[in-house]
């Protein structure tokens, strides 16, 4: 019996048209950009051959912005205006932060903390966008063209607010986000594809400011995340802080000014890195008071003062294993990711915990960007048939609603494979109640007060009924980026009232527009040109996708007149895209999307049927 063939849906683009897509690791300490060229993922260097871009942004007195090594070199000189580790502030309010030893002028604003700089008040999203802009132009120079999009990595344990902030930063930098990808998952792709491994793997990812542990099952072409845990405020920076505090104590220093704080934190970092290959490090510095610091930090001292940090990574590790329903012995390998895993104390502790030597044969700084680049290449449609794989990721934290008594009702449990949707019905509390308030929260704790508040919204226009008669169905949908939308609908009366929340910490389109116009002084013209360009790219990508779909299935799945209507719509879009009316192009893109929905539906149904047919063939062979 001949085996049934299964086509790859939506993957056929015009031949030889390589779409430029990159993977970006937007790190706490360093950021990188990587791309797949000629089938090989590589990190793109700057013009001086350096792969890393320090995630440091300095707002210069003359109105300019400097990003990277130059900014890093000036951080102790100009601490207020030189922002390091901004990732720690993403999606965070002032109350979430440990303000100790942070030399910035922080402003408590609703939703997210802001920073006062020489260029006025900046949101962490804007600061991150500066880093992304530099990486984008580095990539466009290296690849010789405009990017169709990027995969941007985020810590797996990042919550909704932090993910949304990251996506907003990309938008602000003019980057089309193909997908937000969890960092350990990206590392697993790079590692798994490189070494062709199968089985259960743990990825231990200790970056500059975040810690993730993910447990994955790797099997033929499938990367399935079983569970993830972590701490989005624990990283290599904290080890620097411990050394810094140790120096203050040993040298009996009074509280320092921001400049000296930066200086000593820099020295602390150097000492930490030196201790990776040496038994002791010297810390010497001249403070602005003229005081001289001259201390010797032995490896034993270092291990002692950072022991509790190391332990703080092991508790989430235990939880991740328990969530995956696995014992330590069932883990086949442990992949180490993130610059901080170079520390011998970390390698030792992880090795001891898993009773095996961790895998360190990948550059822990680059592996995430490389994995993201490979995924970006696939998402952009450059995949060669045959080397495809599937990524099944999870959400790190449970999502729920506040119910009576300040308690949390979990709607989507953590570690659910995404995309996921869950619905639950609620009812009215009083007779004649016509509105209902919803409070969306994220976290594992029972009390709403202990969870993170994501959004509040109201459903109005419920027809008056006796208490308990209305049926309000609330649906949570988490997309493949791990981002949530919530809607509510009254069922009984047949009256539909639905709302979709954009979480309150997210930036509105208006805010993005304002930030964009601030970023480019000669805004008006730029904005128009930009909007037109965006719409043209959008139109082109839709036309390409449709042409491919028609070539593949037009014959089989469409009647002649249906096909004719679609082709006419395409011709109209093609003509409009030649013009300069971006709103008209957008309208036609939407119309064409509407028009082709039944066709898309048939293709999808057919693919599903074929998947089942293929599976039956497989089971026959077994």
């Amino acid at each position, binding site marked *: 019996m001949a085996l049934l063939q*299964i086509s*790859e*849906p*939506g*993957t056929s*683009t015009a031949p030889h048209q390589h*779409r430029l897509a990159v993977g970006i690791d937007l790190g706490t300490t360093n950021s990188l950009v990587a791309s797949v060229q000629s089938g090989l993922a590589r990190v793109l260097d700057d013009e001086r051959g350096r792969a890393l871009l320090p995630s440091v942004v300095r707002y210069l007195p003359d109105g300019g912005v400097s990003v990277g090594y130059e900014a890093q070199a000036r951080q102790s000189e100009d601490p207020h205006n030189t922002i390091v580790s901004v990732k720690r502030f993403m999606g965070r309010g002032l109350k979430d932060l440990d303000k100790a030893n942070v030399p910035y002028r922080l402003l408590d604003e609703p939703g997210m903390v802001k920073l006062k700089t020489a260029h006025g008040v900046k949101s962490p999203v804007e600061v991150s966008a500066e880093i992304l802009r530099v990486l984008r132009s580095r990539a466009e120079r290296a690849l010789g063209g405009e990017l*169709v999009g990027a995969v941007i990595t985020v810590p797996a344990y990042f919550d909704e607010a932090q993910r949304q902030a990251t996506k907003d930063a990309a938008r602000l930098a003019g980057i089309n986000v193909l*997908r937000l990808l969890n960092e350990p998952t990206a590392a697993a792709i790079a590692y798994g594809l490189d070494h062709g491994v199968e089985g259960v793997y743990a990825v231990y990812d200790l970056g500059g400011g975040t810690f993730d542990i993910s447990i994955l099952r790797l099997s033929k*072409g*499938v990367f*399935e995340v079983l569970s993830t845990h972590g701490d989005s405020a624990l990283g290599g920076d904290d080890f620097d802080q411990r050394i810094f505090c140790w120096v203050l104590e040993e040298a009996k220093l009074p509280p320092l000014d921001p400049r000296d704080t930066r200086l000593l934190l820099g020295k602390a970092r150097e000492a930490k890195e030196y201790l990776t290959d040496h038994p002791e490090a010297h810390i010497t510095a001249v403070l602005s008071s003229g005081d001289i610091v001259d201390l010797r930090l032995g490896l034993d001292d270092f291990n002692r003062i950072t022991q509790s940090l190391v332990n703080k990574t092991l*508790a989430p590790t235990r*939880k991740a294993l*328990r969530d995956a329903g696995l014992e330590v012995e069932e883990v086949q390998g442990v992949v180490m990711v993130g610059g901080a895993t170079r520390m011998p104390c970390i390698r030792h502790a992880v090795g001891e915990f898993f009773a095996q030597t961790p895998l360190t044969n990948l550059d822990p700084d680059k592996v995430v960007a490389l994995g993201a680049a490979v995924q970006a290449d*696939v*998402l*952009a*449609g450059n995949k060669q048939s045959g080397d*495809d794989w*599937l*990524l*099944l990721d999870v959400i790190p934290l449970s999502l729920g609603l506040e119910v009576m008594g300040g308690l949390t009702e979990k709607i989507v449990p953590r570690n*659910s*494979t*995404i*995309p*996921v*949707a*869950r619905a639950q019905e609620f009812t009215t509390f009083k007779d004649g109640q016509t509105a209902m308030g919803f409070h969306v929260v994220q976290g*594992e704790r029972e009390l709403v007060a202990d969870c993170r508040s994501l959004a509040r919204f109201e459903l109005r226009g419920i027809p008056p009924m006796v208490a308990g008669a209305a049926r309000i169905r609330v649906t949570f*949908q988490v*997309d*493949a980026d791990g981002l949530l939308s919530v809607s509510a609908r009254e069922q009984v009366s047949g009256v539909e009232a639905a709302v979709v929340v954009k979480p309150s910490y997210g930036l509105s389109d208006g805010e993005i527009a304002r930030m964009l116009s601030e970023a480019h002084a000669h805004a008006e013209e730029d904005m128009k040109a930009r909007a037109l360009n965006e719409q043209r790219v959008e139109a082109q*990508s*839709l036309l390409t*996708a*449709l042409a491919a*779909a028609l070539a593949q299935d037009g014959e089989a799945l469409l009647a002649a007149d249906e096909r004719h209507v679609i082709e006419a719509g395409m011709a109209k879009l093609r003509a409009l895209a030649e013009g300069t009316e971006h709103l008209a192009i957008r309208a036609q893109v*939407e119309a*064409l*999307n*509407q028009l*082709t*929905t039944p*066709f*898309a*539906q048939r*293709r*999808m*149904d057919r*693919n*599903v049927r*074929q*998947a*089942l047919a*293929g*599976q*039956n063939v*497989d089971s026959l062979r077994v």
Partner: protein
Amino acid sequence: MTPDFSADHFTLFGLPAAFRVDGAALDQAWRQLQAQVHPDRYAHAGEAEKRLSMQWATRVNEAYQTLREPLRRADYLLQRRGIHALGERQTALPAEFLMQQMEWREGLQDAQQARDAGSLDALRRVLKREATQLTDLLAQQLDAEGAWDAAADTVRKLRFVQKLAEDVNLALAALEDD
């Protein structure tokens, strides 16, 4: 337009509608379906296909979760027969079982107060064994005997046990946090 979700979960994965499922076959069918419908496959497609892909992938994940977890699978099988075991109106469970519940709950509270990880872990194992027994019983009641009402009781018991097991896990996690 939403996809045709009328096919039941078993049909979707090409599996017989029974409580005992071939876990490996389920996993394989899930992955095969996701390979066709997952949003990553449509990242560069038109909006219509992207939206459909998300709906389908969501639907496939929902079906998979339902069939993979014994409690949800049993509940789903009963719902197909119009029995809502976990609905609002349910019959009381036997006093004997409820007494046992209270005993376990007290054990959990005592261990929590004493910060006794050893007892918590022992209780975790007891509950795991209990859940396995109830699952075996469900297979008997649903697949062999067709004893739907009895199975509905077992489903409710299993939910009690699983909820308790979750609380034990939370208590263990809380100990680790300090």
